[in-house]
């Protein structure tokens, strides 16, 4: 680290951005343009998001104290971020005291190296994996593969994605873009020894996966997982899941390696009482997910006898140094915001180009990996990938004000890129959702008022087309309908095409170089 000059009130350095799967190859409008042509994707997504949305509303409506739980969840996360150094040290102390080993990783590259080294030390050449956003983010599977280590995903959806050499498209149901026929084909082609008469009934497909994976669970000596929560006070780690593959991975192997983003720490064991209510209800619309595992270090005679915890920065401290970014770190990855988002519903997860899709991805990805318009960074298009309708804010269990954060990011992006208000207006018009008419129709009156008022009243100088919004606060059009209708119309398609053409002409995007600085 660079030396601090004595006697000078030096400004601390900004942390470098993260590495890994945090940036697509193309800007959002161009990528979305192709995804929009995928009827299968749109049909599946529409059905899925509608179903989960309805279930979520039922089970959250059941709790008279839902808003109080959200307040508590939000406050606990804010408190966590404010006390992160001491909480991380406390977590490390308690995991170590219970027989675990804690490792720290500055970025994805380093985390991959640590995990690979730990696996090599066991002598094993394969690992079983519990679905984990963090390892997806750092591209762990690819790294291990390059070293000759096979990583088997064990979550059914992740397995489908992996066997299809595909990418996840949803935080919670990563294979939502596939239908049963496609899945059957994938299994027939990729699972060795699968019954050729396998049909497309989901129960039968799941049974085929069970047989295939059971052998892996029983024979593999090392498992890699993520963590939903890490409790500083006790050193307890937790994984929330449905299928039991998590329990298998966390219990049967001799060695367990858990990769956890530093923002996942929670201060007290008691805080679980809040998040165990918020997470399942927001995520799958269930009162509780079928299985949650909690473990503290190593327990003799029960479960893995070697436990490693890898604490991952990878851009999180860069996000933490920003008021906006810090709020995005409160995310508990429930996916509620994806399921209510009219833009996500149309484009699916791949258009976002990052491990983190949907509304939260549009905020979190530029925060973790940066956005630089001058270098035509695809991430700089993400803050525009929203209709700002406010549904994500209403849905978020930890009350992350995503629409305001997106507006702030747009603001930062224009400032940094030196774009004039006029250029922004043009850009907005070329973007997917940004026609004034569309906005007018897509805004919920309440959300609109809030966005216009701005976070801390800071956005009084919105350029056109935004400046015209206030006149349309009483627009009676049902927001999502009109918006979708527009996107499906010839005019919408033409706008999308124009946007796509413009960005294709823009040439190959270059990666943000800033991440190299700290190496």
């Amino acid at each position, binding site marked *: 680290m660079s030396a601090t000059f004595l006697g000078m009130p030096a400004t601390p350095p*900004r*942390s470098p951005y993260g590495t890994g799967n945090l940036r697509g190859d193309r800007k959002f409008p161009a990528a979305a343009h192709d995804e929009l042509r995928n009827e299968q994707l749109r049909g*599946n997504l529409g059905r*899925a998001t509608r179903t989960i949305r309805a279930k979520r509303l039922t089970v959250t409506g059941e709790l008279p*104290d839902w808003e109080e*739980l959200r*307040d508590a969840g939000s406050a*606990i996360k804010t*408190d966590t971020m*404010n*006390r*992160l*150094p001491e909480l*991380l040290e406390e977590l490390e102390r308690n995991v170590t005291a*219970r027989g675990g080993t804690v490792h*720290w990783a*500055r970025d994805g590259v380093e985390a991959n190296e640590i995990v690979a080294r730990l696996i090599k030390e066991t002598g094993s050449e394969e690992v079983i994996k519990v679905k984990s956003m963090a390892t997806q983010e750092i591209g762990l599977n690819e790294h291990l593969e390059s070293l000759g280590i096979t990583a088997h995903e064990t*979550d059914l*959806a992740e397995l489908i994605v992996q066997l299809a050499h595909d990418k996840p498209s949803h935080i919670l*149901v990563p*294979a*939502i873009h596939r239908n049963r026929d496609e*899945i059957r084909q994938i299994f027939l082609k990729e699972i060795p020894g699968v019954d050729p008469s396998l049909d497309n009934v989901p*129960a039968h497909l*799941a049974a085929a*996966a*069970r047989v295939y*994976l059971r052998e892996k669970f*029983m024979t593999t000596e090392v498992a890699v997982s993520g963590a939903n929560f890490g409790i500083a*006070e006790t050193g307890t780690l937790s994984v929330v899941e449905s*299928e*039991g*593959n998590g*329990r*298998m991975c*966390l219990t*049967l192997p001799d060695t367990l390696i858990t990769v956890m983003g*530093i923002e996942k720490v929670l201060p007290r064991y*008691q805080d*679980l*009482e*809040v998040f*165990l209510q918020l997470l*399942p209800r927001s995520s799958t619309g*269930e*009162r*509780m997910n*079928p*299985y*949650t*595992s*909690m*473990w503290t270090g190593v327990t003799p*005679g*029960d*479960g893995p006898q070697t436990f490693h915890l890898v604490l991952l920065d990878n851009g999180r*401290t860069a996000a*933490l*140094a920003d*008021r906006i970014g810090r709020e995005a770190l409160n995310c508990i990855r429930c996916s509620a915001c994806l399921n209510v988002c009219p833009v996500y519903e149309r484009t699916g997860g791949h258009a976002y180009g990052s491990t983190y899709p949907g509304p939260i991805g549009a905020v979190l990805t530029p925060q973790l990996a940066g956005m630089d318009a001058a270098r035509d960074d695809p991430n700089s298009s993400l803050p525009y990938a929203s209709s700002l309708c406010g549904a994500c804010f209403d849905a978020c269990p930890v009350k992350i004000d995503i629409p305001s954060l997106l507006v702030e990011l747009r603001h930062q992006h224009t400032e940094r890129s030196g774009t004039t208000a006029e250029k922004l207006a043009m850009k907005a018009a070329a973007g997917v959702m940004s026609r004034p008419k569309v906005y007018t129709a897509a805004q919920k009156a309440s959300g609109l008022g809030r966005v216009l008022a701005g976070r801390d009243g800071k956005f009084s100088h919105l350029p056109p087309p935004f400046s015209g919004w206030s006149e349309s606060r009483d627009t009676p059009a049902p927001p999502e309908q009109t918006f979708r209708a527009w996107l499906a119309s010839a005019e919408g398609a033409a706008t999308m095409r124009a946007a796509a053409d413009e960005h294709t002409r823009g040439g190959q995007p270059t990666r943000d170089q800033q991440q190299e600085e700290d190496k």
Partner: protein
Amino acid sequence: MTTARETVLGRVRDALALAPAADGAPVPRAYRTGRTLPDEERLALFTDRLADYKARVHPCTADRTAEVIAEVLREQGAERIGVPAGLDPRWLSAHDGEVRQDSADIPAPSLDALDGVVTASAVSCAETGTIFLDGSPDQGRRALSLVPDLHVCVVDLSTVEVGVPEAVARLVPERPTTLISGPSATSDIELERVEGVHGPRTLAVVIRTDA
């Protein structure tokens, strides 16, 4: 050379210096805690939630435990049954099949040969239909209640709390804890729910109403 640990912690401190925290307001905990309900209502709520997850529910008085367990096992066609070392042996006294006592030195994969397992439980939560196992001697190691396809879990109604906060408060953090809400399930294929992927495909809950 600076270690990654020092670098990351240093970056976190720098970040907090760059964008200082607002005043640390205390966490508001205005949500419901400390709830109680009479036995009958707690039982009704818990039973309803369990049934919602497609668990099989068998309320009984404590003196009928062995009988009910034997009935459930017969119904499921389960003969070879695993039990944790600390389980009350009388609970399996009415079962005609084989009973194998688990121990840490039995390799976990061999648990696959069991038709089912019977365990006790530590705590439950009625509102969510969740059973907590904490590795106590009558619940055994985690693999035991995971690998076999049938899990018969005995719950004493006195250990059933109303809500999540009340249940979490009864846990011992250092113990390996498993929360079970119904049998293993997936909705990964076109969101169609399928019971049973990797954990036990059948969960039967014997609730002892006077224990």
